[in-house]
């Protein structure tokens, strides 16, 4: 896991007005580490926006020059929505670029300041009380993490996937 901070140069109000689509969890894109019997206890869902233009988000390329073949989306977790403990794979990406999941790196940028009940956990470390622009990155394969919005306000993050060029 690596962590960092980039200047918050985006329009937070604009992020909130994007056309989010409910996603759910697609089989084959994640490996749940939670007992299936327990999954019924959660509202396992979130919403996202894909097919965004890098030209509208120049700060991504400006700040993450050490990632190539970048794909990004913006995720919205509404109050009560949870992504229980899991690891990710990205078959669409690995097929497109003819690479392996073990080549991939993922970054989450927190687009707003932390709010009550917003919880992120990565590699057995709880991450809370962050500021807008803080980011966390990890090797995509075999890195367990979970997300939850136990609060009363929406949670917005940028999800960035690419291949590191600095290692």
């Amino acid at each position, binding site marked *: 896991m690596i962590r960092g901070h980039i200047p918050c140069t985006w329009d937070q109000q604009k992020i909130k007005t994007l056309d989010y689509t409910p996603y759910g969890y697609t089989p084959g894109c994640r490996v749940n580490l939670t007992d299936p019997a327990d999954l019924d206890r959660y509202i396992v869902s979130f919403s996202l926006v894909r097919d965004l233009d890098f030209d509208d988000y120049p700060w991504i390329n400006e700040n993450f020059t050490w990632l190539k073949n970048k794909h990004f989306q913006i995720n919205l977790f509404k109050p009560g929505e949870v992504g229980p403990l899991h690891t990710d794979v990205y078959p669409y990406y690995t097929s497109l670029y003819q690479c392996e999941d073990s080549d991939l790196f993922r970054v989450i940028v927190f687009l707003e300041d932390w709010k009550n009940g917003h919880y992120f956990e990565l590699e057995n470390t*709880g991450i809370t009380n962050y500021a807008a622009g803080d980011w966390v990155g990890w090797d995509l394969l075999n890195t367990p993490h*979970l997300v939850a919005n136990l*609060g009363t306000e929406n949670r917005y993050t940028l999800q960035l996937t690419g291949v590191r060029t600095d290692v």
Partner: protein
Amino acid sequence: MSNFKVMQGHIPLSWDLNFIESLGWKKFNYDTDLHNARWQGDSDQYSKIIPDVKFSVVYDIFEDYPKEFEFVNKHFQWLNNKHLVLFKFSPGESSGLHTDRYAYYSNKYGIQNDHDIFRIIVFLGEWKSGHYLEVNGKGFTNWSAGDWVGWDLPTPHLAANLGTEERYTLQITGTLF
């Protein structure tokens, strides 16, 4: 965040988690227990956040302080009228953001001023993935068994088990000497 009094500390591990697990747990009862809490936001909003308040408790079995809980008197001598409740959050169980009302406690001990009341949560087991406590806008994770967090009334807080293993805590309510 408001200027509530939040304290942290650690006491040596002196209890048997197997004993605690073997106690007579019962589900938190909406009808009789919910009046003890004041949820943040309106009730409609709350019902969207957490469909059910789910966790288990052991009430009122420590009136005589069995030897397994002698550590409470030893380590929290600065609290009077100590009242103990055990909590178990199973995977997926949460309490939403709320403040406590202390109605039962105040009545039982004849407390005139609720602002004299202090509440402590002792983590009875090591932190495990998905175990979470938030007090007055600060998240607590990665604790050790014996760590504790305390706050005065009416500090907002929430607890959750987003993981795969049970989360056990001891709640101590008392009045500050």
